[in-house]
């Protein structure tokens, strides 16, 4: 059942979009346009430097079951061009080639929502190897209810433009709605494998022999019938069958065996792959977290003597707790953890000249080495990597934010009152944001290892002439 494979559930839904337009504060806007506008302002996960700094997080990051998901607005079937015809056939059927052919159309526009999620009904539960149809439906409904609980306002804003959504009042209603919109996923793709799964191979040789036997008998019977033999060649060694009689049992036997072999292979193919070790979302996030911490650790410990390495590794295990999937770990929706402290861009500071906020921030940075001490002030704070630079002023006020590793990820952790970062709006901020804590404890200073992302070498030597030249063209991304 392709909706379920390797412990994951592959949900594909098509929700019909209401036809026509509706009056709104921005004029008469069609429902399709309205959905597009809503989706355009829905934050993505923080997977690019700009979005990571922007601070907004996808509402799907509040879910601890969603690996990947996407919305696509499908206006209509794409016209692939006129079907080429055979001119001789057209003549016979009376098809006039100068008349336009049919153009396929969907009955309305659709909003596709597809998601790859853990096939579980509870966050963090182990992934199942097999699920019955009812259990799969239960997983889907549980996921729909989970989404409704975590992001009801966003779902309403999007789906209110879809037909039939008016009747959805609660989580169960949304689950029923998604069930109605569901389309079977015919090709799931899953690649969390660290080592290849242990699969039962199809017994190819016995299968081929089983299929070949009646087919061979059929072929011999036909041969015997063609040459008018009295007894079927070769098979006469086994029994005294004239070709006609041999045909009468060989033919249905061949059909039966072929069908049985086909059914066997297809049923085998339809069996879901077993779930890989640790491939549910908490496991994947923990793996990403450990991968980053362990890379830092291994590099730092190069050349250490065995006793020191042993002790350091003990501390590593105690601090990062590899067996504990809940904490410490990386939250959903980011590509690095902790997010990189943003290095200042000195060219911009020189170019745009000092501004009052920046001057104050620079003074603060120069004077106070520990940003955590100044948690209560209203001033924007700077991350540790910036503090040793006297020109550490950030060029634009609205980009300053506080980024720090939380002690426990997850949507339920909240930042303290004194968190200082300007917000774009009251909504999604995500689970992070506490006053920056130094990473010094993780990384004893090395000879030539400046803290992450400090890039003193990109500062050009000598005086910096003001540039003022922007690339004229928009570079392709």
């Amino acid at each position: 059942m392709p909706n379920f494979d390797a412990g994951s559930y592959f949900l594909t839904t098509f929700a019909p979009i209401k036809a026509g337009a509706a009056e709104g504060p921005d004029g008469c806007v069609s429902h399709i346009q309205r959905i597009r506008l809503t989706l355009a302002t829905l934050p993505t996960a923080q997977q690019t430097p700009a979005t990571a700094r922007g601070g907004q997080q996808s509402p799907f990051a509040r879910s601890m079951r969603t690996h990947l998901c996407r919305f696509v607005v499908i206006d209509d079937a794409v016209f692939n061009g006129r079907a080429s015809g055979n001119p001789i056939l057209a003549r016979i059927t009376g098809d006039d080639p100068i008349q336009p052919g049919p153009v396929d159309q969907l009955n309305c526009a659709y909003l596709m929502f597809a998601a790859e999620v853990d096939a579980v009904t509870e966050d963090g539960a182990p992934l199942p190897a097999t699920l019955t149809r009812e259990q799969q439906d239960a997983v889907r409904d549980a996921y729909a209810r989970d989404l409704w609980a975590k992001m009801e306002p966003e779902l309403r804003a999007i789906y209110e433009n879809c037909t039939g959504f008016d009747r959805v009042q609660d989580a169960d209603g949304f689950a029923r709605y998604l069930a109605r919109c569901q389309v079977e996923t015919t090709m799931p793709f899953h690649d969390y494998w660290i080592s290849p799964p242990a699969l039962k191979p199809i017994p190819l040789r016995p299968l081929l022999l089983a299929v070949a036997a009646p087919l061979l008998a059929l072929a011999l019977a036909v041969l015997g019938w063609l040459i008018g033999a009295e007894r079927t060649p070769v098979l006469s060694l086994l029994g005294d069958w004239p070709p006609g009689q041999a045909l009468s049992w060989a033919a249905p036997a061949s059909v039966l065996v072929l069908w049985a072999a086909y059914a066997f292979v297809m049923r085998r193919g339809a069996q879901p792959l077993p779930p890989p070790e640790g491939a549910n979302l908490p496991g994947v996030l923990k793996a990403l977290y450990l991968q980053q911490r362990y890379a830092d650790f291994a590099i730092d410990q190069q050349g250490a003597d065995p006793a020191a390495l042993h002790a350091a590794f003990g501390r590593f295990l105690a601090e990062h707790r590899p067996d504990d999937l809940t904490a410490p770990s990386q939250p959903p929706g980011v590509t690095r953890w902790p997010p990189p402290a943003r290095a200042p861009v000195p060219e911009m500071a020189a170019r745009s000249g000092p501004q009052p906020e920046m001057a104050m921030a620079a003074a603060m940075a120069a004077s106070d080495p520990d940003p955590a001490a100044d948690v209560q002030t209203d001033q924007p704070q700077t991350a540790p990597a910036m503090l040793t630079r006297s020109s550490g002023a950030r060029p634009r006020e609205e980009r300053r934010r506080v980024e720090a590793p939380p002690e426990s990820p997850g949507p339920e952790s909240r930042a303290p009152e004194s968190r200082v970062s300007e917000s774009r709006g009251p909504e999604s901020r995500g689970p992070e944001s506490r006053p920056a804590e130094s990473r010094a404890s993780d990384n004893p200073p090395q000879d030539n290892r400046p803290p992450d992302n400090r890039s003193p070498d990109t500062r050009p030597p000598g005086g910096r002439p003001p540039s003022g030249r922007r690339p004229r063209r928009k570079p392709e991304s």
Partner: protein
Amino acid sequence: MQPRLDLADIQGNVVRAYGRYSFPVARYFFLHFGQAEAGRRVVMALRNRVTTAARWPQEHGRIAKPRVTLNIGFSFFGLYALGLPTRTLQGFPTEFADGMKARAFILGDRDQTLTEDEAAGWDGAWDPIWRQNDPFAPTAVHAWLSMNAQVAPGTDQPVPELDEQTDWLRALCRDAGGGFVRILPGHGRDGAAEWQTGKALFARLPDGTLAPSPNEHFGFADGLGDPIFAGQLEPADERARLPGRGKLMGKGWQPLATGEFLLGHADESQELPPAPQPWAFSRNGAFMAYRKLHQNVASWRDYFAAEARRFAAVTGLPEAAAEVTLKAKVVGRWPDGVPLARAGDFDGWMRLRAELELDDPAKYYAYLKSSASSDFRYADDMPGYNAPNSCHLRRVNTRDYLDPLNDPGAHGPNANPDATTQLQKRRHILRRGLPYGTEDGDDDSEQGVVFMAICASLFRQFEFVQQQWIQYGLDFNAGNNTCPLLGDHSHHRRFAIPAAPDAGHPPYVCDGLRNFVQPRGGEYFFLPSLTALKMIGMGIVDPT
């Protein structure tokens, strides 16, 4: 069978490198055309002096090379300024029309973690001529001219013909150009120079004379392993030089398809590379990326001196050997040019040097000239024990490493014997250029390499290698790590050196790499054939 190329129609710098041994000094000029007609007059006059790819004549048993060469290329807006028809201009590829500055994000010249607004001023370190290279400004770079000159024997002084030709050029712009054609100044930090100088590093021979050395400013032999395409060399010459410099498709080393570098000929995918109309205009032309690459020699020295201490402790090598080993692992060759694929560690290198008698200058020179320095492959070292997967050489020419049928763990002389260069053969560039600047500088002084890459498709060849193989590491199982030599190290600063199980020490990871090489400007140019030059000069490019 050798394809028949009209060598007299092709510009000489495409077919020949004007190598540092014959032409160790170069000047690169950049012109601006203020008026189409004046520009065309200048182009017509220049055409007669352009050095072609025709074989140099034999005189008295020696090949008579020109004392100074001349070659020309045009930027997209240079062709626009010369009045080419719209349809022809439309036929040029997008990246060429954009120009190198607008592609800075793709190439990694501009910080890829900053938006365009945030990165304003990113080209602050570029030379003034490149900072001011704005398509519609009076300082737009429209044409590139190169003069490669021989030197007086035993010295590093160019022959007087170089100055003569420079004066001739100035006079031409003044007279035929009528003041509308200008040589743009703006090279170097102060922006005063009228041209960019390229000059090989010179070494003093035992008899006191100077000779060009193969090295660049990091102390490594450069200019090895340039690819060879069909029709480029005489058949006998090609056979001798081909190993390691062509493609491996199961029939031994073969030259690359001509269309990989010259427009109008079939390329490796058996198509004609996209080119502007009319065919007569684009045939035998090529595209070139010109980049001035500054080398932070002090950062290079200091970083590896510091890192060598820990590397020496981990590997048990003496510190001097550890330092040169680290640098070699980054580059992919030992400083003398011996590839790591042939000698994976310091002792192996020393043994090979003794075996080949590379201390003898004549033998060393012969080794560099021969195919021995290029004839190796990577499929016999998939884990990267000799040449690390992420080292510079392996990134810019993957050879047979990416053959999807390779056994990933295979290592040894007989490993993956049938590996082909199928996935590399469309990613080659012809490297041209010379070092510039004085030796014994530091990060702030002017030194580096004037680098030129010639290919039929900047996007598919030069930009691909720059974006996917230099500024990214997925194909080498190195994640986001960039090329340890050329890559941008503002954010991704690691380089892993794998170690064989019997090496006696674990793998080593360098962290905190600095930016060793930084671009100081550049542009994309079209190198027209001689026919096209005439068409441009006469204003008769007709795309209908």
